[in-house]
């Protein structure tokens, strides 16, 4: 991103995503959850964007529009309904893994199956201390076939070849959901890609989740503003009580902050910066912290209405926590940035760093 402005073509793409979201996603959010999927008419349109190929390199069959474009579109769609995104964006959090995979033929083959709509993919950060016996959740529309795992400096790809079971989870029901025991998978490759590249792979996955979280948080903010300016308590709108007004202002500032860091990290990927993975992980941590606060305020200011499914506040509250559980959850991310913080220079003043 240069000078904080999105390119005109990205704005146009976001406008199209916004129109689709308004007309086809927002009016039927609960129906999508019930059905376990977004309507085919919607996913067909998204395939035409193409959502899954938007930030995928051309060499892997994508259109290589860049990470910044992708996060802007994801945020826009999530504003209307995030629940089907993990399934609709079949490359989603795995774009970094696909791009970094040393076996180009294998990566191309995997990407082709995803772009063709034949398979879904998932990304996980195995816990090296606890050990990981299964993938706890992945999208299942279409069937989950590829799982990328990245820990330390290692990247691995496994293919689902055995039985899986339906996974009842916190959110994103419109993407289906399965749990996959690793005993039901067959390893297709394992590579030591180096610490920087591995952090970039994990960072790219985390940034994908962060972009969705920005949209969810923005939606929560907008609904809360709408509700609290309409509903009257103690003689004036909820929002006009100063304590509530302060919470709303705080929430708005945090959504703004999250959007900036996510787009900044995305631009860092687009410039192939060596520390993009570090800053993307930082963006995810920042966004998740903010999104929890914003969606919590979203429920709190709706009072009892926030707790019932007549409103979407509870859904957004669940979605943000779910997003924080992906890619190894927040603890793994904090460990990643802590491990790198002594070596990563200031993002803007790196050239001056040696003179401190």
């Amino acid at each position, binding site marked *: 991103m240069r000078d904080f402005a999105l390119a005109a073509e990205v704005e146009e793409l976001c406008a199209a995503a916004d129109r689709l979201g308004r007309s086809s996603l927002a009016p039927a959010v609960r129906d999508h959850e019930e059905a376990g999927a977004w309507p085919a008419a919607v996913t067909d349109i998204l395939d035409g964007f193409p959502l899954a190929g938007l930030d995928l390199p051309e060499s892997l069959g994508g259109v290589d529009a860049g990470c910044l474009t992708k996060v802007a579109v994801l945020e826009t769609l999530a504003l209307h309904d995030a629940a089907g995104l993990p399934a609709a964006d079949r490359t989603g959090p795995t774009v970094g893994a696909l791009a970094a995979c040393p076996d180009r033929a294998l990566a191309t083959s995997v990407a082709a199956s995803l772009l063709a709509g034949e398979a879904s993919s998932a990304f996980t950060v195995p816990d090296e201390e606890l050990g990981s016996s299964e993938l706890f959740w992945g999208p299942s529309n279409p069937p989950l076939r590829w799982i990328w795992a990245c820990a330390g400096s290692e990247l691995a790809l496994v293919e689902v070849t055995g039985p899986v079971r339906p996974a009842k989870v916190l959110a994103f029901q419109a993407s289906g959901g399965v749990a996959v025991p690793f005993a039901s998978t067959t390893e297709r490759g394992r590579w030591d890609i180096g610490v920087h590249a591995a952090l970039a792979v994990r960072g790219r996955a985390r940034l994908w989740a962060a972009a969705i979280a920005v949209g969810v948080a923005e939606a929560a903010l907008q609904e809360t503003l709408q509700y609290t300016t309409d509903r009257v308590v103690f003689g004036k709108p909820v929002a006009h009580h*100063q304590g509530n007004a302060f919470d709303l*202002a*705080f929430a*708005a500032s945090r959504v703004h902050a999250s959007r900036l*860091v996510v787009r900044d990290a995305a631009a*860092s990927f687009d410039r192939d910066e060596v520390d993009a993975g570090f800053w993307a992980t930082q963006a995810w941590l920042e966004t998740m912290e903010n999104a929890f606060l914003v969606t919590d305020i979203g429920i709190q200011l709706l009072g009892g209405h926030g707790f019932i499914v007549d409103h979407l506040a509870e859904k957004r509250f669940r979605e943000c926590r779910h997003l924080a559980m992906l890619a190894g959850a927040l603890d793994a991310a904090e460990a990643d940035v802590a491990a790198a913080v002594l070596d990563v220079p200031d993002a803007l003043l790196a050239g001056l760093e040696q003179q401190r």
Partner: protein
Amino acid sequence: MIELDRRTMEMLEEVRALGREHIRPMGLEADRTASPPPVDHPFYLICTRQGGLISGMIGAEEGPTSLDWKPVRNFLIGEETAYWDRGVALSLPGPGLGGPALRNTATPEQRQRFLAIFDDHSTARWGAMAMTEPGAGSDVARIATRARKDGDEWVLNGQKMFCSNSARADWVVVWATVDPALGRGGHRAFVVERGTPGFEIIKVEHKMGSRGYETASFVLDDVRLPADNLLGGESFYESRKGFKASMATFNMTRPLHTAHGVGMGRAAHDFALDFVRAEYPAQGRRRQRALERLARIRRRLHTARLMYLQAVWLAKTGQSNALEASYAKMYSPPIVLEAVVAALDILGEAGVRNDRMLEKLYRDAKILDIGEGTQQVQRVVVARQLFDFPRDA
């Protein structure tokens, strides 16, 4: 994000060298003696001779209408100077906060008249701006300093406080009201020059921190000013332009405050980072905990920097930035304090020693959440823009 050109990097390197050699030692000395550097301090002359390289965030001749206006560069310089010592940074010669006030309100003739003194590179000179009063701090709309037209002159009466550098300034931009009943519509900005009869400094404050610059109070007792000292001329104040101009000033000073905060937070971060490198064992629970806290500081300071740069970029591109300026001002001060506290914790008990700079930063940082509108004021400003939060709520 913003990419820095070579000239900006050169300037930042120059600031960094000056910071290490002059600014930080001056700040530590000012803190120890509880008084800002004297006006004839040699470093002020160095700055002046360099044409005010680091004298302020906005160059004397520069503004939104000028192709030479480099607010991003200037704000980064502001961040870097605050890294070494924010108090001293605020004390540096130049128009100071009066600069943006002039930029937003003055006629070309007035800019020439009041800013030309900064072209004289033989003597350090200061400008200042005064808004806060004993009865009007955060709620600037309540200022009570009166301005009365008397023939071809204006007569000012009132009192101002917490005014940076006003005791050493050649002129002070003073905000006054022609009629409190008009509310914001009554606001006017005047330039009061040093030596004007009735203008008297009555107190230089003793502060917990940020002692590198003076904070003064003054009275205006029948101060008579020529009509030309009304910034922008009378026509400027039609349609509430006066209050809007003062708010436009804040729309630049609030991001600058954030930039200063990022610099101070970076100073704490770097101090703690060096301490971890030098003193912590290579493995262990404490080291892991310290690194996680440092990583969090890095993240939040990076976010704060993006927020102020975006607010400045909006101004640079002619877009409204009132909301974003307040977002930045809301976000930054608690983060800076968190950074300093984390750094203190990382040093352990040694953190409280006053030869370690961090305890000074702890005292310095709190003002960031007060000056240019408190955290609470920012929330009011944001709420008014988000959903028309009523003024009497």
